[in-house]
């Protein structure tokens, strides 16, 4: 029943671009007395559906459900900010899973251009992860770091650049993977 009343009030609000007064609520919901309206309004207030100003006029609050807008602070209640922020994370946490195993490198060259990795970019890599087919990895080729896609064909692994101008690298001996790329950071 309450939901039905809410809907009617919302419809009124959408049509008139203002909240109804008590008399209007009475006729809108076909109530017999203003006292009944008063009781309903109190219930809706508890629900955070609406609230009243100092003069008792109605003000909309959450007419369209419980979706909260970050930064909205209600007077008289403890700030919800702290609680809400418990479920957020810092940029560090977002980018770095294993802090002790994360390193950074600076990209030079355009061999990973089509993967969106450009010269000058910072890549964050994790040494503790075992690389698998399709990962972007840091491998050691001819005593140099190289950044490429790790690909697998049958049982053989090889390194594939993201740029047609560069050759695919088939390791002569054992392929040494130093780390797996977890993020690319570019600051403007």
């Amino acid at each position, binding site marked *: 029943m309450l939901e039905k009343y809410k809907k009617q009030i919302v419809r009124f609000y959408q049509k008139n671009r203002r909240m109804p007064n008590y008399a209007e609520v009475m006729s809108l919901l076909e109530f017999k007395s203003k006292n009944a309206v008063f009781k309903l309004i109190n219930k809706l207030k508890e629900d955070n559906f609406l609230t009243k100003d100092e003069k008792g006029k109605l003000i909309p609050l959450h007419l369209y459900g419980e979706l909260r807008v970050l930064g909205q602070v209600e007077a008289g209640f403890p700030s919800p900010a702290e609680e809400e922020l418990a479920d957020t994370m810092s940029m560090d946490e977002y980018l770095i899973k*294993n*802090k*002790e*195993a*994360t*390193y*950074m*490198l*600076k*990209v*030079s*060259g355009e*061999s990973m251009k089509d993967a969106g990795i450009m010269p*000058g970019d*910072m*890549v*964050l*890599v994790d*040494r*503790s992860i075992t690389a698998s087919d399709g990962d972007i990895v*840091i491998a*050691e080729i001819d*005593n*140099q*770091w*190289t*950044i490429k896609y790790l690909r697998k064909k049958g049982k053989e692994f090889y390194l594939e650049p993201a740029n047609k101008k560069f050759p695919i690298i088939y390791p002569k001996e054992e392929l040494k993977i*130093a780390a797996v790329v977890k993020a690319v950071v570019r*600051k*403007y």
Partner: protein
Amino acid sequence: MPLNLHSFPNAILHIDGDCFFASCEVARRPELRGKAVVTGLERGIVSSLTYEAKARGVKRAMSLQEVKRICPDVVLLPSDYEAYSLYSMRMFNIVRRFTPDVEEYSIDECFADISGLQRPLNMSYEKIAQKIKETLDSELGFTFSVGLAPTKVLAKVGSKWNKPSGLTIIPGRDIHLFLSKLEVDKIWGIGPQTSAYLNKCGIRTALDFAEKDFEWVRSRLTKPHHEIWEELRGNMVYKIDPNKKSSYQSISKTKTFTPPSKEREYVFSQLSKNTESACIKLRRYNLATKKIFFFLKTQDFLFKGFEFKLMRATDNPIEIIKMIDKYFASVFLEDRLFRATGIVLMDLAENNCRQADLFNEVVTAEKISKIFGSVDGMAKRYGKHTLFLGSSFSAINKSQHAGDRKTVADRKENLFKGETYRKRLAIPFLGGVS
């Protein structure tokens, strides 16, 4: 005969990074793998070296000219203490994943107590030690040597036993097998004096020492040696101290500079800079000093120092430098080339009990301490020595090491957008990748 009947009454690990500084360098430069690498370029002497360099006869503290002579293809690198500290922190944090009882013994070694952790970790002590080593090796990118034993002294014997990348397990029952092969002067805590004395008593190996009865040890040696004797027998005396160092017995700052200088004013400014650095550390730990020792080193390694006491404990470099100025003449020699200055602050006490004195110097000191509060605030924001004393000017304004020697770690020159020479991201840099 076994010295101890239990395998592990306590399970103590000693973990030691293999040639730590040099390894940090090789870990980020694959082109250096298998080469003779030496760090310490900015100091002119070897600070750390790889096993390849060791095999060529290079030793710690050797002069770099000597190194180049015996090993012409050596790779000489400036120290990058920022990177080494990052690796060091990571090393301790990785060990803490397994146990909270970790004692950070130095930048590249720690002790850890894993007693009683077999069940919670569902692994034997041997397996835990192995797992810690594997995690360190793979996540930091170079090798560590680990000793597992019932005591700290024995754990240290273990980590040294099979370097590099060794894992040596010394259960109580097998202690004697290891100690019989260890000379007594190789024991942690037994110096040349004591070992010479023990040799005279016919004690050659650590086992000879450990097998003596307590009465023999008690009547001939001092308490620290009684404790080592107990530890060698597998009875734990030295506990693991997991507390981060929050207090210091003394604080010292020494810096070499090149080229060496004859100029009084310049040498003094070096000392002034060291004093400021030492006081920054003093203030960080909220300490004050009452006794100060400063020294100069000449090019031919002559060492001259002077010690003085203050009326009142202080953390203010101005007061200290004023006193140093007074006594500087007694250590400075005309026409001699100096290569390093240093300062040691001693008699440290918590900096909260400023006693009022007769001449009301406390009020002035109070004001000055406010100034240094701001100096520290600026340093936090813009880097160390942003604000400094006039007496340190020539030292701070001139690079510490002049000449063609490349002495700045390349990290400081290879910055990302948004980083500055003074402030960089706290993530180890592995260099360029293409």
